[in-house]
Every structure is written in structure tokens, then in C-alpha cells.
């Protein structure tokens, strides 16, 4: 048997301890909460799997889950093609490269709650720039505190504004790493722009796009701050996404047991989708 030097693993130890404290131990606590009932004061009563049954059968959970999938689907289907298109349009060399990159990175530097507050003010019907323009210049009624459609359009637009840059930057990084020889070969063969995109650029961007889609899926599936600040889940429950509903149950109603069960189901969904996606995207590389 070949002996290997495994001392490198000790360097991972600090990260392991950090993750244990900020993820693993809280996670285990959530598992413990999910099978118990508490009325505070650190007194717990055994409840078994009742909360899981209750959450899995509740219409409220189904509705929030449906909204969550719709939101994630919408932003992925907009942000990924848009991000690729912008990355393709960006210059590869010269003065405009840093200008484009910095401009692209700007939205991502803004804290999430500030993004929510900005869009809230931006879309106010009477004083917000966008809201005023729609209502008083174009004459289209647009009020996200009253119309669910307007609220949805606003949160989706806000997310596109905030996070398309991430896709752009990742796709751009993939694009600039393609050697010129590929383009020259394509030119000699007389390949069309579409063929160049389909057979050179897209395959070369596959890895970064996998990461981009995964990050955008996980982030959008767990999104809380921006829609919370912008709409607070309203009007009615129309923009109450999973995390907003979860916080309402956990902190608003102080139902820690059901909230814990719900967060575990939430976690299982995120984990499965991320795993499936990653496995399917990297399957061909491994074999």
C-alpha cells in the first residue's frame, strides 16, 4: 500500500471548526426543534414527526413553495440568457474593458436591504421615478402595494438588476479564456456567428455557467431581504416567498417546531435541486 502525506488535512481544520459553529451546530439544533414543541423558557415537549406532516399537507406551504419556484424559474430564465448576451457584447480588450467590468459590478456591491429600499422608493406611484413615469406620464396604473402583478414585476426586475451582473462576469471570464486559435479555425472553416457561439463559446462557458446557475438558483431560492424590504410579502400573500413565510412562522408566530420542520424540508429541496443540477452538468466531464 502506498503511504501518502495527509498532513494537508490539518490546514482544513480551522474551516471545519468555523463551519461546525456557524452551520453544523445550528443545523443540528433545527433538527432537534423540528420534533418538539416549545412555549419558550427552554422547555421542550416531544412531538414526533407531527410538524413535518402538518407542513407537508398545508396549503400555505404549497402556495409559498409554488411562488418560490415561479420566482426562481423567472429570474433564471431571464438572467442567464441576458447575462450571456451582455458578456458576448462586451469588449475583450482596450479602454472599455475596465469601464464595463466596474459598471457591471456596481449593483452587486449594494447591500441587499438597500436594494430593497431603493426599489421601494423608485417605484412609489407619486414620488418614485419609475412609479411616477408609469402612472402619470404613460398613464399605466402601476402600484406594487395594490397589484400582485406589479409587485411580481418589481421583485423580478429588481433581482435581474441586482444579479445579472454575476452571470455576466462569470460568462465573461469564461469567454476571455478561449484562445484565439479557436476563432481563427472557425473563421477558416467559414463558421457562422451562431456556430461559433454554439460549438466554441457555449461549451467553453459550460463550467462557469454551471456555477452561475447554481449560485443564482441557491441565492434566489433562499432570497429574503430584498422582497421583504420591497413588498413585505404583499399585497396579501402574493409575494410571500418561502423564506418570508418561514420567518413569519418562526418569529411572527413563534412556532419554532413547525418552522424548524419547514426549514428542513426547504433545505432538502435546495440540496436535491443543486445536487441534481451539478451531477447532470458535470456527468459528461467525469466519464
Amino acid at each position, binding site marked *: 500500500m502506498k503511504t501518502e502525506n495527509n498532513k494537508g488535512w490539518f490546514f482544513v481544520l480551522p474551516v471545519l471548526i468555523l463551519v461546525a459553529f456557524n452551520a453544523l451546530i445550528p443545523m*443540528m439544533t433545527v433538527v432537534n426543534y423540528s420534533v418538539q414543541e416549545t412555549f419558550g423558557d*427552554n422547555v421542550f415537549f416531544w412531538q*414526533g*414527526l407531527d410538524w413535518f*406532516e402538518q407542513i407537508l399537507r398545508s396549503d400555505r406551504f404549497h402556495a409559498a413553495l409554488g411562488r418560490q419556484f415561479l420566482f426562481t424559474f423567472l429570474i433564471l430564465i431571464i438572467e442567464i440568457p441576458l447575462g450571456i448576451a451582455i458578456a458576448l457584447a462586451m469588449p475583450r480588450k482596450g479602454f472599455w474593458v475596465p469601464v464595463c467590468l466596474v459598471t457591471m459590478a456596481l449593483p452587486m456591491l449594494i447591500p441587499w436591504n438597500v436594494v430593497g429600499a431603493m426599489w421601494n422608493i423608485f417605484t412609489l406611484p407619486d414620488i418614485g421615478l419609475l412609479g411616477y413615469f408609469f402612472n402619470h406620464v404613460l398613464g399605466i396604473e402601476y402600484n406594487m402595494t395594490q397589484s400582485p402583478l406589479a409587485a411580481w414585476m418589481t421583485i423580478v426586475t429588481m433581482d435581474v438588476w441586482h444579479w445579472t451582473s454575476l452571470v455576466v462576469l462569470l460568462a465573461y471570464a469564461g469567454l476571455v479564456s478561449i484562445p484565439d486559435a479557436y476563432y481563427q479555425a472557425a473563421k477558416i472553416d467559414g463558421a457562422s456567428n451562431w456556430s461559433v457561439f454554439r460549438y466554441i463559446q457555449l461549451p467553453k462557458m459550460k463550467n462557469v455557467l454551471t456555477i452561475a446557475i447554481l449560485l443564482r438558483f441557491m441565492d434566489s431560492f433562499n432570497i429574503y431581504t430584498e422582497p421583504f424590504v420591497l413588498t413585505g410579502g404583499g399585497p396579501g400573500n402574493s409575494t410571500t416567498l418561502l423564506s418570508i413565510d418561514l420567518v413569519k412562522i418562526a418569529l411572527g408566530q413563534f412556532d419554532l417546531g413547525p418552522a424548524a420542520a419547514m426549514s428542513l424540508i426547504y433545505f*432538502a429541496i435546495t*440540496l436535491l435541486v443543486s445536487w441534481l443540477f451539478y451531477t447532470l452538468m458535470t456527468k459528461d466531464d467525469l466519464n
Partner: protein
Amino acid sequence: MLSWMAWTWPTALVFIGIFSAIGVLTFLEIRQPGGDERKGVLGLTTTRGDRLFIALLGTSYIFLAWLGLVGQPVWWPLFISIGWGVFCFWKV
């Protein structure tokens, strides 16, 4: 010190089970490095760790599906999960 974590015996046993499984895999990996990589019936290339992950993830979904569609008690999903675990380490 750990009272805030609200431990119960069943949840503790679940975690003891998971951590011992990881421990066993670590031991096996030291004895036979390489992770026993193979291509299984699902068309995936898996190591021992992957198979444990798939077994555990599948188990959680078997239990959740049973609780949502049928309800308690959960003896049946337990047996199905054990079967699924055996299948994962055998074929996947």
C-alpha cells in the same frame, strides 16, 4: 451547556448514525484509498461517499413523501429506506 440545543434521543441517534457512517467511510478510505469508484446503474460515477450521500438524500425524501402522502407511523418508509440504502451501496 448543551441544553439550548434541545437534544432528544431519537435526533441524537440520527446524528450518531450519520457521523459513524462518515467515520466508517474514513476508515475504509484509509485502508483502501481511491473511494472504490465505479459506474453504477444510474449512469453516475460514484465513490463510497457519493453512495452514502445518495442513500441519505433518498432516505429523507422517502420519509417526507410518506409523511405528506400517507402519514404516520413511519415503519414502511423505514424499511423502504433501508432497502434504498442497500441498493445504493450495491448497485449505484
